[in-house]
């Protein structure tokens, strides 16, 4: 199960006065089970990019292969693709419409032609996976808190049992606590199920701790593509395009400049603490290998 994007181009409003090249010759390969962060500034083309992966937008040039099949072939089953590549939009809670959370989550699996029982099982499973408290299952989705609405909406996509899950800014508009909870839940999901997950975000801080690979988009092009450590090594260039490396990168670089022997490649707070303590010559019990 892999997605390959082969020289994909996309132009918004192609024949209008304000034609915008949203994707410019994008080549990507996303193998099975990877947790990928797609980072970019507003308008960098990251949302456009992910909407290509389940066929909602059709590239104006190039090809996309899903498991080796060209999704633009005339006989390619687009509906099936959409069930296998689950896309959670930005502010997904805006799509909730049913009378209670549980029926809303059932909407996706029912659309795939599952019978009632199977759909309900899937919905139950999905709600459990996103950590929705049981007592809220039969509440109106409009009465939930922001974070819980979002969980319900994510469950709505998850219930379709996709092989690849794409989340577009899943933490937008949440407070730091809700943000961390959602991200942790996503990571847990990825570890438990081995699902391929694409996480779109504009914040390095958000993804640094969780993903295996980072793709940086800028002006519709892939700017960097690699492991977080490799990408953050370019932190000066990232800054020039309005993105920032995680705060620890700056601190470690500053320490290094002042003569401390720290590893500047640490990307998470935990790793940073470890390398700083190491440089200071004190390695507490908990951090000892």
């Amino acid at each position, binding site marked *: 199960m892999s997605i390959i994007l082969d020289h994909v181009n996309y132009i918004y409003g192609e024949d209008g006065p304000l034609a915008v090249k949203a994707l410019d010759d994008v080549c990507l390969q996303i193998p099975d089970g990877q947790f990928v962060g797609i980072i970019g500034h507003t308008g960098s083309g990251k949302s456009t990019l992910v909407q290509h992966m389940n066929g909602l937008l059709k590239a104006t040039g190039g090809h996309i292969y899903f498991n080796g099949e060209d999704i633009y072939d005339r006989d390619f089953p687009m*509906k099936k693709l959409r069930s296998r590549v689950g896309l959670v939009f930005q502010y997904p809670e805006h799509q909730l419409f049913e009378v209670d959370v549980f029926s809303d989550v059932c909407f996706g699996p029912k659309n795939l032609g599952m019978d009632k029982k199977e759909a309900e099982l899937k919905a139950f499973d999905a709600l459990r996976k996103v950590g929705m408290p049981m007592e809220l299952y039969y509440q109106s989705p*409009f009465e939930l808190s922001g974070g819980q609405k979002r969980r319900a909406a994510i469950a709505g996509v998850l219930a379709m049992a996709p092989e690849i899950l794409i989340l577009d800014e899943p933490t937008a508009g949440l407070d730091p606590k809700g943000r961390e909870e959602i991200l942790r839940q996503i990571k847990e999901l990825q570890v438990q199920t081995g699902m391929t997950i694409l996480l779109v975000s504009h914040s390095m801080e958000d993804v640094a701790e969780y993903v295996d690979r980072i793709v940086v988009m800028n002006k519709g092009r892939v700017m960097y593509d690699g492991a977080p450590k490799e990408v953050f090594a370019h932190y000066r260039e990232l800054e020039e395009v309005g993105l920032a490396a995680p705060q620890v990168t700056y601190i470690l670089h500053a320490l290094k400049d002042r003569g401390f022997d720290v590893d500047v490649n640490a990307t998470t707070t935990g790793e940073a603490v470890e390398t700083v303590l190491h440089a200071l010559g004190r390695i507490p019990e908990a951090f000892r290998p």
Partner: protein
Amino acid sequence: MLRDITLGQYYQTESVIHRLDPRVKLGGTLGYIISLFFFRNFLGYGVAAVFLATVIGLSHVPFRFIVKGMKAIVFLLLITVTFNLFLTPGTEVVSVWRLTITVEGLRTAVTMAIRLTMLIIGSSLMTLTTTPNNLTDGMESMMKPLKALRVPVHEVAMIMSIALRFIPILLEETDKIMKAQIARGADFETGNIVRRARALVPLLVPLFISAFRRANDLAMAMEARCYRGGEGRTKMKPLVYQRRDRLGQICILAYLAISITAGRLRL
């Protein structure tokens, strides 16, 4: 998909028509529409077509773009033409089964088609070249005399400008929700009419909720900026007639005189 509707949309470019005072454009469009109903012969439509073509040329809006917006009303046009074609009594031309085409029917159908098409092109040209804000400013200023009759002119204009402003926002929102539901396996395109109507529920419920949410936010924002209606409110860019606006008015009057005279000649 929904972005293809150009009716009521603004096309941003630089042209004489774009710079024209909205009051001139509103009056001109109104005059043009009325003129279409005065014609008794095809010469009038010919004059109107020349006038329209000139304005389109001056406006720098690509003809392709205008036609694209017409797609939405093709259906309406077809119904009108069909009914007129078959249901007008008169001298028979062709008769198949119970359907009869008459000379009069043919004539009305063709006139109707031309009239409707030109009417829609003309009025969409106005919205294509005038920003919604300008348009409502123009309307407010033209309706000022109605204030004496206690018509809440400012409020009406404000409502209109908000409504117009929200069209693209709600279209975008619809597009987004539609995509989100398609991603969840919703199907808006196949099935019979009942199925399709039911398929709209997952689209309409979130759309209404979002419209109310936006209305609420906007009301709050207006209140926070101490909005209190039109009394004593001044404009940042008041409308002022200029030389080109006078010239525009003269052109429109000339067009009306020529086209209506030509259109009412007995040929």
